[in-house]
């Protein structure tokens, strides 16, 4: 495999690892290295000195074509999620900007799309392939969990631990009146 072909796959691997890393942790504090790693992966995948050989050249070309509508779609989706009344009140500016970007994404896609019967066949087959891979993964996770030995029952909290938990709860619930 040529180094340029390896670069494409390495970049894609780093991107997926970065995205997965970003998804860890609570929603309000994601992993700090996730997004930088994903962006580094995209840079490794798309910026290169020489054109990669077949079949990686087709992968890069198709990704670049899709980026024309995928980038506004991703940015628009993020803004809509920020602006929509999911956790807080509606934020009109991000919401409207997000919808504008989503409209742009659909317009871009409409201008480059070329739907044929073979594409539909390919899409359905791809969905079936993904389903199979995810089903195997789910089955493997279930097997791994079943093979994990059960931990013994946890001991009840000691008096010292009870006092500590109580103090934490008091601090977080801001109870002013002492018993």
């Amino acid at each position: 495999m040529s180094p340029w072909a390896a670069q494409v796959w390495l970049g894609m691997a780093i991107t997926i690892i970065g995205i997965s890393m970003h998804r860890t942790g609570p929603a309000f504090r994601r992993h700090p290295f996730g997004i930088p790693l994903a962006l580094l992966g995209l840079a490794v995948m798309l910026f290169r000195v020489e054109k990669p050989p077949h079949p990686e050249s087709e992968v890069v070309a198709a990704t670049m074509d899709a980026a024309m509508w995928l980038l506004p779609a991703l940015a628009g989706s993020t803004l809509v999620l920020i602006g929509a009344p999911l956790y807080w009140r509606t934020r009109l500016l991000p919401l409207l900007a997000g919808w504008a970007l989503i409209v742009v994404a659909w317009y871009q896609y409409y201008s480059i799309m070329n739907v044929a019967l073979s594409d539909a066949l390919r899409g359905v087959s791809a969905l079936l392939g993904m389903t199979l891979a995810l089903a195997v993964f789910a089955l493997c996770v279930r097997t791994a969990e079943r093979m994990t030995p059960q931990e013994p029952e946890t001991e009840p909290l000691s008096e010292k631990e009870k006092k500590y938990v109580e103090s934490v709860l008091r601090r977080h619930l801001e109870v002013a009146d002492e018993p």
Partner: protein
Amino acid sequence: MNPNLELAISAFAGSAALTSLFVILALIGTLNPYHRPAIPMLGASIVIFASTYLFAHIVGIPANSIALRLTMSEGVLALLDIIPIAFLLCTFMFLQASLRKRPEDPLLALLESEPGSE
């Protein structure tokens, strides 16, 4: 073989292999002391090798590293074909989320009334 059938099997094998590769990479990206990734990784690897073998058999090439690259490339191209369908579903969900009215919650109201909160 019928070219449409060949196309369908290629897309099936490619997307199965690529999804399994993503599973392996996701397991690496989220590794923590409580993970038991050995069996899922083994399962995903088996799917990748079986898909590569199927693809190589359909296309009529030896099942080697070139077949693996071709399978993965086919997977990327097939995945790019179905992303618009996922985006269409997401657009409908975003529309629902944008038009919904946030349910009144006394705890959230209390939180919002605190100084410094949005």
